[in-house]
């Protein structure tokens, strides 16, 4: 049996790049979709609010694992059974991220005091102007810390992409473990790589939050 060595670490590091790529796709795609969800959640239209609310409920009430299975098999049904695993994994993570980011950002938008809306309205600004010129810039400041915090969740959750056959960091670890059967060494190395990626982001998020709280006092 081959034992866990430098070659394996190199394999893990390359897989870690795929983890990062998948995270980037999930974050950017989920961000765009999530932003639309957040806007829909605070819109004037009752229908839009209801639909977006239901979307969030469904995404947040279903395990990511099941979401990934559904997309994987769903894509196969509509005839895309030759697609690279990255597509199915990416689509699943985009939907997952959009549900959570949408809800986080809705909270941030709503935490801007109502008086700001009224003040902007009294200046005869349109709804669009009020949103883009007054509310969103303030919401953005509040949103940064939880958004960075959620990015950590995304990175960790890309580990589930392995179920649709995508070889990222966790799956690479599992493959190595299957041949070496040195689970402690392999998975602790994997965990360390995740930690190195995630910890700075967590610390940054916490720092942002602290600064925001100080600013508010």
């Amino acid at each position, binding site marked *: 049996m081959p034992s866990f060595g430098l070659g394996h670490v190199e394999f893990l590091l390359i897989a870690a790049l795929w983890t990062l790529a998948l995270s980037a796709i999930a974050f950017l795609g989920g961000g765009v979709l999530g932003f639309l969800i957040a806007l829909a959640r605070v819109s004037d239209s009752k229908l839009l609010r209801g639909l977006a609310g239901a979307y969030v409920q469904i995404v947040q*009430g279903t395990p990511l694992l*099941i979401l990934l299975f559904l997309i994987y098999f769903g894509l196969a049904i509509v005839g895309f059974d030759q697609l690279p695993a990255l597509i199915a994994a990416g689509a699943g993570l985009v939907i997952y991220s959009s549900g959570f980011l949408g809800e986080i950002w809705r909270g941030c938008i709503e935490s801007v005091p109502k008086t700001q809306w009224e003040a902007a309205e009294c200046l005869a600004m349109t709804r669009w102007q009020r949103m883009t010129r007054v509310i969103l810039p303030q919401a953005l400041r509040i949103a940064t810390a939880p958004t960075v915090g959620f990015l950590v969740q995304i990175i960790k959750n890309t*580990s589930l992409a392995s179920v649709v056959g995508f070889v990222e960091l966790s799956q690479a*670890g599992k493959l190595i473990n299957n041949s070496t059967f040195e689970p402690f060494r392999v*998975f*602790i190395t994997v965990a360390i790589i995740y930690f190195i990626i995630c910890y700075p982001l967590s610390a940054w998020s916490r720092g942002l939050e602290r600064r925001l709280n100080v600013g508010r006092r």
Partner: protein
Amino acid sequence: MTYQFDFSSLLPYWQEFAQGVWLTLQLSAISTVLGFVGGALCAIARADGPPWLQRIVGAYVEVIRNTPLLVQIFIVYFGIAVMGIRIDANVAAVLALVVNVIAYTCEIMRAGLESVHKAQVEAADCLGLSKAQTYWHVVLRPAIERVYPALVSQYVLLMLASSITSQISAEELTAVANRIQSDTFRSFETYIVVGLLYLALSFVVRAAFWAFGMLVFTRRRKLGTPL
């Protein structure tokens, strides 16, 4: 192309689905209770323990929160196996989930403890309550009350995340689904059913927590303040 949905071939499996739901509920309930107790103790240790303990708990929380649950599950399951101990996959699953959720509970409870004003502790101290009595009667309940919504969200997430333990073939709803879909070749339908079951579970769990909160936090109930 048109796809013929066929949910009827899943009907014979309803008992297995129900069994899966029951297993997932058990798995989540045990992990939630143990995770809450452990997390609360960790939060107290982190706020009030000796410096070395504070550092250990702090490091533990950071490590768990910055690595994926799946990797933690692998370390627990394969790690225990390689040490020559035969362990049931479900026991390993509970162990990994508890280790994981303790860290998150600790972080939430820490915020709760911090929200209880120092003057409250001082008042209890002046009435002659011991440190343990002060925590029990004066600090913990308002702290839990304050962070209860965050705890509930965390434990709903835990219930959903328990699906990941299917990766070490622990017996729960997702594992049941994996088996049924390979029996029936009705993968998409199977996961739709399971997705709906999880959705229902998350509503039920939320409702149960809400009812429990109403029962426990008498002040909220009497004054009608929302939980």
